[in-house]
């Protein structure tokens, strides 16, 4: 049974999340030289073992990742092509639990590997409390996920009491639909993106703390934050192509469509921009150019998906090249020119897509 689940759930999960996992990997280890990786990983592990807050932070990430897996499994279980899973109910309870545990271990493998490393390090360096905390967290998480999924599959016929507040219904105008989609359907990905974005932003600011109030440092931090949103942008575009396809036969002008896209990106990136404004004490022109740069780069990520045809491998390669190009433009103080060129290109491509019935 586990073999079949790994072929279906497991394969699909890694196929869908390969981009996100690779981006996290790049951001964590990509900038390290191969010789220094061991010391770098060891220092991270020691920080996690010795600092209670850092360890709790890791446990939070682990739980978030676990929740992501749970949402993925739940979505698949409610899909029509996954009804075959219900046959597993006829197996013994112990077998079912073992299989679900095995599946979650595979889905959580990258995070579990790191948790095991933390456990070994904390035992080796005598941080016994950290060992207890991390092992309890892993046991509770895996146990909870396994039991919950077992119950969901075997006792799904029991009525579920909804906690939704019907009196709190707010009208949803058109421009808020994508925001609603993100907050209702992609909340976990949204939180992961925001946490990742916050980490890379503050990490880069700390890394270049000795550079003073140099706008280029903040722009590199913003560029990294933008790239942390790449998977979310791809998910939103997929939603638009499937559930909002009916808009393509309505008389909506290309300016309205473009402005709506930009408005969504502005709202999506607003927390980072507020953080940026607090951290950097720049002039109005500096702030405006940074805002333009970040929105245009977000728009470029979105438009690139049309050219790349939703191919995540190519998208990842593009992001890497784009990051290098953006870094080069920032370091050579050409970011404003790059922003304007990208804005013109994006607008021209948007117009082309609109007149070719692709929008």
């Amino acid at each position, binding site marked *: 049974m586990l073999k079949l689940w790994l072929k279906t759930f497991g394969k699909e999960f890694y196929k869908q999340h390969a981009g996100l996992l690779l981006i996290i990997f790049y951001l964590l280890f990509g900038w390290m030289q191969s010789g220094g990786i061991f010391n770098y990983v060891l220092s991270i592990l020691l920080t996690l073992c010795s600092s209670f807050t850092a360890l709790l932070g890791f446990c939070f990430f682990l739980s978030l990742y676990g929740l992501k897996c749970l949402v993925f499994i739940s979505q698949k279980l409610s899909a029509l092509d996954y009804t075959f899973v219900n046959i597993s109910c006829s197996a013994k309870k112990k077998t079912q639990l073992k299989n679900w545990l095995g599946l979650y271990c595979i889905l959580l493998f990258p995070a579990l590997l790191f948790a095991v490393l933390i456990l070994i390090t904390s035992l080796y360096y005598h941080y016994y409390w950290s060992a207890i905390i991390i092992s309890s967290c892993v046991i509770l998480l895996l146990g909870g996920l396994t039991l919950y999924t077992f119950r969901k599959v075997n006792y799904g016929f029991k009525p579920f009491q909804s906690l939704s507040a019907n009196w709190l*219904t707010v*009208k*949803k105008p058109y421009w808020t639909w994508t925001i609603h989609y993100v907050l209702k*359907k992609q909340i976990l990905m949204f939180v992961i993106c925001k946490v990742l974005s916050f980490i890379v932003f503050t990490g880069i600011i700390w890394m270049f703390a000795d550079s003073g109030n140099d706008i280029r440092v903040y722009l590199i931090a913003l560029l990294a934050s933008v790239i942390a949103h790449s998977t979310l942008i791809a998910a939103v575009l997929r939603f638009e192509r499937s559930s909002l396809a009916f808009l*393509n*036969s*309505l*008389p909506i002008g290309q300016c309205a469509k473009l402005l709506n896209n930009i408005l969504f990106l502005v709202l999506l990136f607003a927390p980072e921009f507020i953080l940026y404004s607090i951290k950097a004490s720049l002039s109005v022109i500096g702030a405006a150019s940074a805002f333009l740069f970040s929105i245009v780069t977000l728009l470029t990520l979105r438009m690139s998906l049309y050219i790349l045809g939703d191919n995540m491998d190519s998208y990842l390669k593009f992001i890497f090249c784009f990051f290098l190009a953006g870094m080069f433009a920032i370091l050579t103080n050409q970011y404003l020119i790059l922003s304007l060129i990208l804005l013109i290109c994006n607008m021209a491509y948007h117009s082309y897509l609109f007149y070719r019935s692709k929008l």
Partner: protein
Amino acid sequence: MTNGSYWIKGGNGKGKTTLFKLIAGQTPFTGTIEIDNIFLHKNPVAYRSKISYAEAEPQYPDFLTGNELLDYYIDIKKADQKSAAILTDQFKMTAFMDNKVSTYSSGMLKKLSLILAFTGETELYIFDEPLITIDKEATAVLYQLINTRKREGKTILISSHQEIDATTLTLNGIFEIDNQKVIRC
């Protein structure tokens, strides 16, 4: 094609939905599509304001309510709120319009797509398999609405596997798609 109602026949995979999606401006294509000298490639907004399209398998964001979608259509098509309310009444959907689309059955979803397609004034109505999943009463309402639009001088394109009842809807022409060509029967 002059005003009136037309039935597009053709077996599975013949290209009826693709043809309708092309006319509705939902799929990229090479060549030209025009209504009253308004070309889709040259003036997409003006072109799209002349058409109404109800898909065979309508898909809407499941967190929206029927009324939220209807309000959006009213706004975009500059339609009249009263006539929209009459339409929802005719399809017996008024009681469900404040419910989320995710709670709708396939028949209700189809009715919603028909309500949205009939909202506002357009020249060309395109209905892809409008008879599937809807009940007899809704089918009668659909025929009645098509006849009314026909009398108003509009053009209606229908694709259907099921035979169209000639006593309730007189057709001005029947077409068949064969080998990627639209042939008049």
